[in-house]
């Protein structure tokens, strides 16, 4: 067994811990991705258990486990499955392996180190709700994950786990590996479907139609995240009760979290959901071990680049959506980026804003234009040529993307009270608001740093224009 808090050499970034390990249980083995190792360590038993039950019973088991989607939105997977309209066939499964949210690093590990677990999860989902074909969409920039999954699929086909009459039963499902080609927005489920249909990866307007009713080729389609599906073999083998015994009632099980930035031991950890706090993660002896050089914590991003920022005031919040939401942010995709006291906050915010401006697909004007303007204004503020007026302009531009109060954390020192998550938005998907989130957080929590950057620059070139109707 691997020592606690020590990185595993062949699992880049993963650090073993004493928490129950549901999805990372095989990461200790150097050959974790082979079918031999998988079968030796209880692999495909969850599928066998599933096949011994009725599809409705399997669906019921997953619903009872209250497995929350691990992609970002955190919607219960079993409930999502239930949204397929009855009597409409065929139905498809699309696996979202397009992990590209800034700070997020977990799905790639699951695909590279335990591809059979993911495949087994796909098969269980297909059996439970009658999905006749599965498309495994892997991000384009992950050559190794594509190779590992291709190898695993070939092995599983040969061993009779995929294809016609799986394990001698009526279940017949093909799993097709599909590579992406580099577009962040494709991580959004409707954009993923567009991409899979061979189109530009632009999101579809929803509501009225969610993919579960009208998705791939206009058919009912379930889009699940890699980590979500990787939990299914364990749930089927051990039962939903055992799953719910870990974590809290509203956030059961474990989840994978990547902590990056200014910590002593950045890494990917499997943590108990619902009870582990940000302080445990960032300061825990067997986890990140504190801030580098024992410096003070300035701020951290709690749930991927799209999430509004937290400061030390929020360290004791647990990994529980119902507590993080009212505090002004989200858990998102399990990505924490930590900034210590030496961080240049406006420059750090710019690295995220430029990401979203670059990744805007261009479908919605507020995101396409607003994101670009946010980046340009931020750039001139960061390089010292901005003016005080620019700081207000940032908020003005942001409000065209997200009208009304933007969520932010409370701050005792500044007398700020929290504005709860989520925000209102004028765009179809979350890319637009995500460009504004880092700007708004940084400006709200650290306005003095922005003011220092623009101090002394004259506003005289700005002319107020008023239009008389």
């Amino acid at each position, binding site marked *: 067994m691997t020592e606690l808090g020590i990185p595993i050499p062949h699992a880049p970034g993963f650090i073993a811990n004493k928490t129950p390990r549901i999805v990372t249980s095989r990461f200790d083995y150097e050959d974790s991705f082979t079918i031999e190792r998988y079968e030796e360590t209880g692999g495909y038993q969850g599928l066998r258990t599933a096949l011994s039950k009725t599809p409705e019973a399997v669906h019921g088991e997953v619903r009872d486990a209250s497995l929350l989607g691990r992609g970002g939105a955190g919607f219960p997977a079993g409930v999502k499955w239930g949204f397929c309209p009855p009597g409409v066939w065929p139905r498809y499964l699309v696996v979202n392996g397009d992990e590209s949210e800034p700070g997020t690093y977990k799905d790639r590990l699951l695909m590279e180190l335990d591809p059979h677990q993911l495949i087994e999860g796909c098969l269980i989902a297909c059996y439970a709700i009658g999905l006749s074909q599965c498309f495994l969409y892997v991000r*384009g920039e992950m050559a190794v994950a594509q190779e590992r999954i*291709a190898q695993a699929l070939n092995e599983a086909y040969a061993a009779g786990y995929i294809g016609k009459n799986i394990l001698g039963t009526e279940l017949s499902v093909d799993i097709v590996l599909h590579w992406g080609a580099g*577009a962040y927005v494709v991580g959004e489920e409707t954009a993923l479907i567009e991409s899979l249909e061979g189109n530009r990866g632009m999101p579809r307007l929803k509501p009225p139609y969610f993919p579960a009713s009208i998705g791939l080729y206009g058919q009912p389609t379930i889009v699940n995240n890699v980590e979500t599906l990787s939990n299914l073999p364990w749930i089927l083998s051990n039962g939903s009760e055992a799953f719910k015994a870990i974590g809290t009632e509203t956030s059961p099980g474990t989840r994978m979290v990547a902590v990056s930035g200014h910590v002593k031991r950045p890494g990917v950890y499997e943590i108990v959901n619902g009870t582990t706090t940000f302080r445990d993660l960032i300061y825990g002896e067997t986890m990140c071990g504190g801030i580098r050089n024992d410096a003070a914590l300035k701020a951290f991003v709690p749930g991927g680049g799209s999430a509004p920022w937290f400061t030390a005031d929020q360290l004791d919040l647990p990994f529980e959506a119902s507590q993080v939401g009212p505090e002004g942010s989200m858990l998102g995709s399990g990505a924490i980026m930590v900034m210590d006291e030496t961080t240049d906050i406006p420059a750090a915010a710019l690295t995220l804003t430029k990401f979203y401006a670059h990744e805007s697909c261009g479908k919605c004007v507020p995101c396409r234009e607003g994101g670009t303007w946010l980046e340009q204004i931020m750039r001139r503020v960061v390089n010292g040529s901005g003016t005080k007026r620019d700081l207000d302009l940032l908020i003005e531009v942001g409000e065209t993307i997200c009208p009304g109060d933007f969520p932010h954390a409370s701050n005792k020192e500044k007398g700020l009270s929290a504005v709860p998550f989520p925000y209102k938005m004028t765009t179809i998907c979350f890319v637009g608001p995500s460009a504004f989130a880092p700007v708004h957080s940084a400006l709200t929590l650290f306005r003095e740093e922005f003011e220092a950057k623009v101090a002394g620059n004259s506003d005289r070139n700005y002319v107020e224009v008023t239009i008389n109707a």
Partner: protein
Amino acid sequence: MTFFTEENLELAHEIIGRYPKQRSAMIPLLHLAQEQSGWVTEEAMKQIGVLVGTSSAEVLGTCSFYEMFKRHEVGKYVVNICTTMSCALLGAEELLEHAETRLGIKAGSTTSDGLFTLEGAECQAACTEAPCLQVNYRHQYRVTPSDFDQLIDELADPNNEETPRHGVLAQIRQHIPVERSVGAVHPDLVNVPPVWIEEKKEANS
């Protein structure tokens, strides 16, 4: 008109056959074209249009949306240095500057010997291993300037075969054996539940 080699054409038909609608094979075929010639040529897009039953303009529409498809010649090795937050906090900008100096080019261009294309890239899902970079979409972790110099020296060695040239993505392909394949069916041709669902319903009634 014939861009694909005979071998790749066969592969293209195999890929198209996996999808209920052939247009879905567009991105996989663009990858195949890029693998064959290192970038996506006009001839390739024309033939892909014919193969999936659409116009070459539609293929261009899809192709131009995605970052990985290059519509002009690029270096043998495309070096993408991540500049998003986690990497930026730990020195990505300095690394990119060092890379520009070492290779003598600005990010976004190719060295005159055609070996290296340098790009400032966005998050590569290796955030705990910052700063990171990819060479032809294969990761290098916690890269220092001296690591970078060593990497460039290794890649510049003509005997280096460890990293495949740009265009070659995964070196292992999925092959669905004919005898095990369920086969893709156009959605309009199916309106009944799959057998394992139907069977249970009959058993219940």
